[in-house]
């Protein structure tokens, strides 16, 4: 097996070289993958660029639809009115992740619900249902009105509280400058 690999690596033209971590290992001029179209990736293509809303799908959901769905599928873990339940704490009020400072961009919650919730059946909800749940949680936090309907455009336009939206700084470490004291420290 190893000899086979060496033959491939040395017998063909080398496309890339590296001076860093992989010095001495060159990419062989081969490709063992297969082309695929974006259309064929669609079922896996669930990510949202949350700062802009890019990737938000078609569909819509209302606060009322979200409440009904929440009470049917989410209440067991998250509790009545998302105030905390058997498994998890409150999603309403001053603590993280909502008004306390976790979600600077409104589509973050949509992305998270769509990829990971409900925990016992992830990726089972329709896009309409994910919009509805997002609307319900955001209405509970008074980010949107009780009669709101969210879709790609209106969700991307929801403004999170300013202290949350502007509450992040990019990594600025090292943030210490300890010295190597050896005696009488």
């Amino acid at each position, binding site marked *: 097996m190893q000899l086979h690999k060496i033959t491939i690596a040395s017998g063909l033209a080398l496309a890339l070289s590296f001076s860093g971590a992989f010095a001495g290992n060159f990419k062989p001029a081969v490709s063992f993958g297969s082309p*695929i179209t974006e259309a064929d990736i669609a079922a896996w*293509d669930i990510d949202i660029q*949350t700062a*802009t809303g890019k990737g938000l799908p078609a569909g819509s959901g209302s606060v009322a639809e979200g409440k009904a769905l929440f009470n049917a599928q989410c209440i067991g873990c998250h509790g009545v009115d998302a105030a905390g339940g058997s498994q998890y704490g409150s999603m309403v009020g001053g603590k993280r992740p909502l008004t306390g400072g976790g979600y600077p961009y409104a589509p973050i919650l949509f992305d998270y619900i769509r*990829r990971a919730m409900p925990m016992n059946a*992830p990726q089972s909800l329709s896009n309409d249902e994910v919009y509805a749940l997002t609307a319900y949680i955001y209405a509970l936090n008074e980010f949107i009105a009780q009669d709101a309907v969210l879709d790609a455009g209106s969700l991307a336009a929801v403004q999170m509280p300013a202290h949350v939206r502007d509450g992040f700084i990019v*990594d*600025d*470490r090292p943030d210490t400058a300890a010295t190597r004291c050896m005696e009488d*420290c």
Partner: protein
Amino acid sequence: MTEEKILRPISKTSPEKYSEGTAREEGALKPTTRRSFLTGAASAVAAATVASTTGAVAASLEVQPSSKSMGRTTVPQGYGMPSKYEDHVTRNRTDVYVNKQNYSDWSMTPIQHQQGIITPNGLIFERHHAGIPDIDPDTHELVIHGMVRQPMRYTMDNLMRYPSVSKFHFMECSGNGLTDWLAVKSKTVQQTHGLLSCSQFTGVPVSWLLDEVGLESGAKWLLFEGADGSAHARSIPIDKALDDVMLVFASGGEMLRPENGYPLRAFIPGWEGNTSVKWLRRIKVSDQPWHLRSETARYTDPMPEGKFRQFSMEMECKSVITNPSGGMQMQGPGLYELQGFAWSGNGTVKAVDITTDGGRSWRTADLEGPVLDKCLTRFRYRWNWDGGPAKIASRAVDSTGYVQPTVAELAENRRIAGFVQHHNGIFPWAINTNGEVSNAIA
């Protein structure tokens, strides 16, 4: 303390090894003194008592049962397991937090038992967000798409046909030490520092595959996404990906364990473990980061004035003494070799210093090779314990010149409250006159 005393050879009457003062009973860590007496024998009284009741210390040797019988047969095929006498060496979930479910949970590596720099595969720490999937490698695929010239799909057979590279690296969870910043919460080094492992990882440089799909102009970020029930995903800057990121299928000489991402994971050297996305199914190329929940509401550092620091990826230089460490029992005054690990996500370990007087004075420890980039490095320091109270700690320096800080120094710029990650502070252990070793972070 003089150099002569430190380097004094170990005499036959000196203890050769620490015994651990804890044992697992009914799933809980409870102190036990029996084992330390059995292995100790530092005290003549203790030795005599043990000898009279158990026969463990006999006046003259007898032929052992193992010499007078045939052992177990060689089985036709099977996977070897540790000795039954090592069944106390296990990954353990946290005993500080009680999670109400164990799908989004973690377990820690028993680094106090780790000999050498490589963590056995069955002891590599775990962190999952929706349980451990059992993925068939014959059906698993990776796709790369987004801002590329040609989206591509790869089966595991495709990926493993490439020439491979193998690299030794540590992996540390950003939450390592989470529970023990300002107050003592954890008893053992497994609980304070066990979200740490090290192995030789084998796979393919992601740069090779990015070259195949062809990055479009303006491509700056990659999304790595898993095939588990959380579809865990992180945004990774493309410069890092092109530098040293690998797509790995093996660690420690064998295919990844299911709990560590089988059959394929990202491996991002030196960065918080959360970025090394397990069960990797998709890489998407973009011009900006995604700002997902896992990079805004989680894995961010609380800062003054209610702010949070984002994308703090590198695990900064850190070290800890593992022997002796919390929960262990010293076996009387005399020579001990202090041992532990140092590592840095920003390069190699340049030096490790040891204090035995609570940080007033420091001496340089020996580093045991190999000393590798972004890899656990073992250090050793011979110390003559006089039997009095002592506070021991290690302090590492990396190849950038960065010196491991104290918690107080870290707290000057960070808000140490709530769920605080990236704890690389100097970590002390106290030793009392009874020889009991305990967490002394506060």
